[in-house]
């Protein structure tokens, strides 16, 4: 297999992962206007939850039907969304709606600090492993290289998530109401939209996507403290490149970062660390609000 193809495959795999971890961030920003630093913690909680749940699954005779562990992974993300989402949104974030964006970044930074220790209190510092789902799909041989089937499952998951979010927003009534709230939450209220419920729903959806990112990653890593710190910075970069609040933007941002990173690792490993900021700086230089900033209706 030639180098270009390798770069594309590697780039796509990474982009799939990047998209899943960033799309929830952009959705939450779009609806709630909060750039959620704690998104990284939600990712980590998702990873811990899935490690725990899959562990329980195999401890209780899951070996007979190993495929069930995928259901356990997704269930973990759903549980995190159902439990942590409302606690954070109803219990804290709703008091800060309409406040300064940057102040809200600090609020979520505080949440991030708190959750880091809360995770430590719940799960301790020892690593958790759930490698079964990772090896279940076997190997895929592409030219001289082996890939793990699971990697392609992550790409598939990213496509499903992307299409799911896009179709929900653009093809369902509820999604269109959400679009209205994204564009103008104040005006939506005067039309009778239950904005608090939309906020809660969107935050839970964002939490689900963050947790899903963690849950899907858990089988290929060891789940340890400090997992969320790095995720948040790359997710930030992706959504800034794509345009805050834009789902297609997150997809394009993830692809750009994923492929340029893969190219860098293969061709110029020294530059890997910068590539993400480089792409971001170039995009912002020409499009100060990212590639797909929120569309504005004409004023005249």
């Amino acid at each position, binding site marked *: 297999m030639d180098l270009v193809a390798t770069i594309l495959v590697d780039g796509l795999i990474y982009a799939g992962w990047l998209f899943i971890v960033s799309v929830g961030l952009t959705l939450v920003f779009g609806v709630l206007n909060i750039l959620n630093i704690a998104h990284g913690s939600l990712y980590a909680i998702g990873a811990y939850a899935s490690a725990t749940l899959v562990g329980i699954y195999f401890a209780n005779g899951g070996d007979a039907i190993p495929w069930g562990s995928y259901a356990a992974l997704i269930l973990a993300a759903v549980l995190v969304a159902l439990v942590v989402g409302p606690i954070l949104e109803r219990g804290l974030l709703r008091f800060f709606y309409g406040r300064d964006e940057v102040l809200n970044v600090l609020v979520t930074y505080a949440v991030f600090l708190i959750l880091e220790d809360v995770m430590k209190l719940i799960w301790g510092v020892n690593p958790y492993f759930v490698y079964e789902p990772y090896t279940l799909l076997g190997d895929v041989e592409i030219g001289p290289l082996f890939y793990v089937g699971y990697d392609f499952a992550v790409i598939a998951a990213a496509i499903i998530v992307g299409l799911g979010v896009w179709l929900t927003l653009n093809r369902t009534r509820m999604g269109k*109401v959400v679009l209205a709230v994204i564009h103008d939450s104040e005006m939506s209220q005067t039309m009778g939209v239950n904005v608090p419920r939309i906020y809660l729903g969107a935050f839970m959806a964002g939490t689900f996507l963050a947790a899903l990112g963690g849950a899907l990653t858990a089988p290929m890593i060891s789940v340890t403290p400090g997992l969320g710190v790095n995720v948040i910075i790359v997710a930030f970069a992706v959504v800034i490149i794509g345009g805050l609040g834009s789902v297609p933007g997150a997809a394009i941002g993830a692809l750009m970062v994923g492929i340029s990173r893969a190219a860098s690792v293969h061709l110029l490993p020294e530059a890997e660390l910068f590539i993400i900021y480089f792409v971001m700086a170039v995009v912002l230089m020409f499009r100060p609000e990212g590639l797909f900033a929120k569309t504005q209706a004409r004023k005249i």
Partner: protein
Amino acid sequence: MTLKLENVEVTIQAAPILRGVSFEMQAAERMGLVGRNGAGKTTVMRTITGLATLAGGKVFWDGTDISAMSPRDRAMLGFGYMPEDRRLVPDLTVEENMLLPAWVNPDIDGARGLAFVYDLMPELTKMSARKSLLLSGGQQKMVALGRALIAGRRLLLLDEPFEGVAPALAKRISEVITSLRSEGLAVLIAQSELSHSMELLQRECVIERGEIVKVSTVGQDTAAQPVG
């Protein structure tokens, strides 16, 4: 008496915007709210929709104090609001923009409302499937009016409906509002000049620097009524 504002005070960033505004509107009454830019017209509108926070005073609807009611619950009472800057959802089509209030309020019959609006403004039929992003400012104004009409079964709040609109279109909008006379809903129109709506209004309030300085029956300039 349908809508009543009593000594309404609104402060934005320590600056008093409304200072003891009081007036009443009857069901099916059409009233103008006239004042220069910055006099507080839009803030009065926002007070009625619930978007502005009261620093003092009360708002009543059908005799009930709704001062603490959320904008959403007020929308459910049948308030329709057309803001000066239209504020359509750019990614949605013309029809979707107008149907949005019906989607979230089970009391509204979307199909009937739509039929009513298309009947009033047939030109909207042609552009019903276009994204509102692609409309001209004047066209957006008509869509925003249509949306307010579908949402507003009891009270219509129109903020500068003629501002920045070509004369021909302004005339058309004026006609549309005039044709509402038979619908039996209260209409409050905020504007800086009365030229387009003289014939359709019954009364006007003049607002200056956040205070109502005069309430008069249109055409009877001399007979200023006491405010209360």
